[in-house]
């Protein structure tokens, strides 16, 4: 079992407290973080589409949902999986997102250099999702579930000259959308793990 940063304290260090209390507290804390990041992710997506111009902000805008760097949307059957398996998938997705958000930030720094708030939100999102991913991994460790370990290094792209500004905008839209989907998915999955949530 690999333990990452942010792993739980050894409950036996404080013999007067029940080990379950620490775990419950950690679950609630991580759940709250996921809820907060879901709200931030919604705001990020709104800010992002404003700066790209229509049709990005229009209702029904739907560019091709192409896979991005081995990260795809939660599968349709995700909710039917055991909660620990769901959290493993959540953790893997959360681990992939910081690099992608950073790519988007760098693209937007060229496309929208004066959109300082957008750039700041993208930078914050990368940092925050990294923290959430670490917290989920720590929970998995505490639950005795193996995480998938460090994700693969994303290889350099097979660069194509056909890539242009519009695909760069679409990429950012896709990544911001994936960020929102995965943090909200994580929030739901943690909610089921929290005391009082469905089994």
């Amino acid at each position, binding site marked *: 079992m690999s333990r990452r940063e942010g792993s739980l304290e050894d409950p036996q260090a404080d013999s007067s407290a029940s080990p379950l209390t620490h775990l419950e507290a950690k679950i609630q804390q991580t759940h709250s973080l996921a809820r907060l990041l879901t709200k931030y992710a919604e705001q990020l997506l709104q800010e992002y589409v404003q*700066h*790209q*111009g*229509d*049709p*990005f902000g*229009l209702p029904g*805008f*739907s*560019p*091709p949902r*192409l*896979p*991005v*760097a*081995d990260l795809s949307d939660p599968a349709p059957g995700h909710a039917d999986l055991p909660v620990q398996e769901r959290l493993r998938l959540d953790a893997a997705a959360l681990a992939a997102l910081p*690099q*992608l958000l*950073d*790519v988007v930030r*760098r*693209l937007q720094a*060229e*496309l*929208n*250099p*004066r959109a300082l708030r957008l750039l700041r939100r993208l930078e914050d999102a990368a940092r925050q999702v990294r923290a959430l991913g670490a917290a989920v991994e720590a929970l998995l460790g505490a639950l005795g579930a193996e995480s998938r370990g460090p994700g693969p290094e*994303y*290889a*350099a*792209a*097979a*660069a*194509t000259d*056909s*890539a*242009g*500004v*519009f*695909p*760069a*905008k*679409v*990429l950012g839209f896709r990544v911001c959308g994936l960020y929102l989907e995965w943090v909200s998915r994580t929030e739901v999955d943690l909610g089921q793990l929290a005391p009082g949530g469905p089994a």
Partner: protein
Amino acid sequence: MPAGRPGPAAQSARRPPPPLLPLLLLCVLGAPRAGSGADTAVISPQDPTLLIGSSLQATCSVHGDSPGATAEGLYWTLNGRRLPPELSRMLNASTMALALANLNGSRQQSGDNLVCHARDGSILAGSCLYVGLPPEKPFNISCWSKNMKDLTCRWTPGAHGETFLHTNYSLKYKLRWYGQDNTCEEYHTVGPHSCHIPKDLALFTPYEIWVEATNRLGSARSDVLTLDILDVVTTDPPPDVHVSRVGGLEDQLSVRWVSPPALKDFLFQAKYQIRYRVEDSVDWKVVDDVSNQTSCRLAGLKPGTVYFVQVRCNPFGIYGSKKAGIWSEWSHPTAASTPRSERPGPGGGACEPRGGEPSSGPVRRELKQFLGWLKKHAYCSNLSFRLYDQWRAWMQKSHKTRNQDEGILSSGRRGAARGPAR
């Protein structure tokens, strides 16, 4: 395939699209999706840069193996708005052309979104149009040095300002007789078109300063401003400005201040300006001929009136320079009141209000509040008009509309009036 035609007399400075970054793996629009057999397309030109008013010919070419890979039914949108079909025509079975004329400036700096759609509305390809103007020559560069330690400059962008394209401004400077070009790095310090050079500036030698503006359509350079740092020095406002009565003289106030300490080690003469106004007025009177003194007596004032006074400094003559420096900001307002006239007014010697002033009721209430304030803020129990004047200044600052409200209240009630409790 016909390319986009930039407008006449335009050297379209096309920037390459943002480079793909090493961590990116993206199935790009235009590249077939692996295994899906779906149709995709390519728009040409990709991300053109055009002058406002110019025309564009674009094409959308469909690729794919399926029988549906045809240009039949394709349509275009620009910034989400569907373009009239009469602007499009099929060049061949797999290519749809578009002709746009008299283009307007781009709606967003990231480029206008020109999108090619399949019959069912799905997006096949996109291209971003950059339509704008080249920058005009920046002008009106002005610079100042705070206490000879730095240099801040600001400028005005070219005559029209709006280029519809991201325009980068770069302030450059160099020593006139030797040295290389340097680029200022701290932008937007005192507004959107400003830059601050914090250190490593030489004195007694002229600098050349200019601004370069660059965007996708070209660049422009301002005229060169030549200056010596010593000729554009400004300073902090004079500190410790005190305003006081001149004995019992009803129409005079004495103003005293200290010369700015930051320049005390340099050989210079300072000149000062004073401005003052009546408490409820917005019109300042300026006393201009205050040379190298640190006190001044204002005369010809109205008795029994509160005045606000400010002082500013011009550090001219630094190290023998013949040029005037740059005026500092005005000091914080300091208030004082002239003594009331000794002549008895109506009602026999009481502190009667003059025309236009609020009734004695509010004045007495004010005094009561003032005494309460004194207990908190004064460490001497002596009641003095100086302290009273300081309080008036404080009240003026924190309840700007109180006198207005009192004026309105005297003619009719008004809800939620601010100011002291009634």
